């Protein structure tokens, strides 16, 4: 239910005409208006100001001609975003997954090759040379 304080704010902001009031408050505000003399008085005060605002001079017809203006403006180059930025913006989830998979693949490759190196010498590698056999002493 609209209270008088809210009604005062409403009418103080939007004026006397219910068509200008926020639609989600309009019905309750009009109900208050129907039963409250204070609300009616507030509306009359707002209506007096509205009547003055309605006498504000109207802006004159534009001197600019739409077709001429559009033709002149459309000679200017348009701003086009860089493709990779567009992809980042429109395919965020895809790129997050792709980067994650690529990172996982690189880590897997590095770990795999490191462990392969630790497995020992290949079976067909030459036998280690005994230093004693070639020593002149």
């Amino acid at each position, binding site marked *: 239910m609209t209270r008088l304080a809210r009604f005062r704010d409403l009418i103080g902001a939007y004026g006397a005409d219910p068509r200008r009031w926020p639609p989600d408050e309009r019905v309750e505000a009009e109900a208050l208006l129907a039963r409250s003399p204070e609300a009616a008085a507030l509306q009359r005060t707002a209506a007096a100001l509205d009547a003055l605002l309605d006498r504000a001079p109207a802006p004159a017809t534009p001197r600019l001609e739409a077709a001429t203006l*559009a033709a002149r403006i459309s000679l200017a180059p348009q701003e086009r975003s860089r493709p990779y930025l567009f992809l980042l913006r429109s395919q965020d989830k895809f790129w997050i997954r792709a980067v994650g998979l690529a990172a996982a693949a690189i880590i897997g490759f590095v770990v795999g090759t490191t462990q392969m190196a630790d497995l020992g010498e290949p079976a067909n590698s030459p036998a280690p040379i005994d230093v004693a056999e070639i020593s002149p002493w």
Partner: protein
Amino acid sequence: MQEDSDDALMRRAGSGDKAAFALLVRRHLARATALAQRITGNRSDAEEIVQEAFLRCWQKAPEWRPVERPANDRAANDRGEDGARAQFGTWLYRVLVNLCLDRRRRPQPVGIEAAETVADSAADGFDETARGETSRRVQAAMAQLPERQRAALALCYFEGLGNIEAAATLDISIGALESLLVRARRALRDALGDLAEEGGAG
């Protein structure tokens, strides 16, 4: 034949379709000029700002994407607007309002340039035929308002935007919008109180 929505026209403009852009300009030129003129109070400034706003519209068209409108923006629905049209309008008017507000932040000319500016302001371009003493007083009182208050009033009262769309255009909360409007109307009532009493209303 169904009329193209602003959204569809912006997409076509984004592909370089000049005819689509021209249609957008034709649709919004009068309203955009009126809004800019109400905020700046000056026809020449308003026209310059409108041209800049449409230039940005053309330049940004390839990147423009409609954003989801709040589901509770029933004001726009009440006016029978389709979502895309309201979104493009909000975007365009936000650009326009920001340009109007930025204009005041720029250094003002001094000396001879300032004198020219004053002379130009006198030719504000408002409809001369309907001007009486009351109209002049109302316009003078509005000119005294801080620009953000004037912008809020122009959007909500004169352009008839709903509170959600007006707040989005000004990039503020609805509470902040209402605060601007309340202060604007209070200042106008203080400035024009004698006229309201003469009118017999209130």
